[in-house]
């Protein structure tokens, strides 16, 4: 039970952070990416302050711990290759991010606003997940796609 309660609570704090920071407003995201016109630099502060907290934790605290509270071990991503799949995927993500002003976290958190477009975004994103899986299966048979 504790494992699910802690996941729920982590999600709530994450969602609260996204809403308070302005990340759930597509205008803020596109304003942040619009460096040549009317730049809104605030999201650099959001990412900066999030990184200070996560960086200190991952660099200083995690190495001193035996494992997480409610699971067997820390599950860190093992992939280290910087390949075409990583770069191409990140580029496609950047394209979609710029076009819509939304990334996965703010989209899910944005469901709270009961906005039909948010649901549409998530359905389109889910379709994209499946198309990527299908394409991966075509390119490299029997190799699974790993995510961070």
């Amino acid at each position, binding site marked *: 039970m504790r494992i699910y309660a802690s996941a*729920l609570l982590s999600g709530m704090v994450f969602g609260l952070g996204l809403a*308070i920071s302005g990340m759930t407003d597509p205008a803020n995201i596109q304003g942040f990416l619009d460096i040549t016109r009317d730049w809104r630099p605030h999201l650099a502060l959001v990412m900066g302050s999030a990184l200070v907290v996560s960086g200190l934790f991952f660099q200083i605290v995690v190495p001193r711990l035996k494992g997480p509270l409610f*699971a067997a071990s820390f599950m860190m991503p093992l992939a280290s290759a910087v390949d075409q799949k990583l770069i191409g995927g990140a580029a496609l993500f950047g394209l979609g991010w710029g076009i819509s002003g939304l990334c996965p*976290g703010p989209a899910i958190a944005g469901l709270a606003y009961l906005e039909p477009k948010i649901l549409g975004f998530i359905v389109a994103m889910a379709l994209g997940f499946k198309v990527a899986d299908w394409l991966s299966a075509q390119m490299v048979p029997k190799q699974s796609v790993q995510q961070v």
Partner: protein
Amino acid sequence: MIQGSLIGGGLIGLASVALMLSQGRIAGISSITYRAIFPSALEPWALCFVVGLVLGPLLLLITTDFVAPVFDGSWTTILIGGFFVGVGTRFGSGCTSGHGVCGIGRGSARSLIATLTFMIVGVITVFLLGLVV
């Protein structure tokens, strides 16, 4: 706005810490969403996290004078954008949270390169869109 950015960012970092500390998992929302919406990949903790992700802003809406943002982008840009975000985060193994906050925080070169890539392409995309619209 600056205070909101700093506090909100701090909460995002804190939530990532809480998830790693409790479950031993990276707070990468694209991957967690995948594990919450597809029955074949379903992991209960991921579903709990996603439910919490919606409850957070909902709580803010109900208990404070927080106003929900306006989504004035067209359906076309929302759907096309969503599709590319889906394909791209699956191929690229993560998004702003998994690569940008957790990956760079862990000191992963892969995540740093992914983050720089989607930032640069995002900037170029918005610049080009501004020329058209």
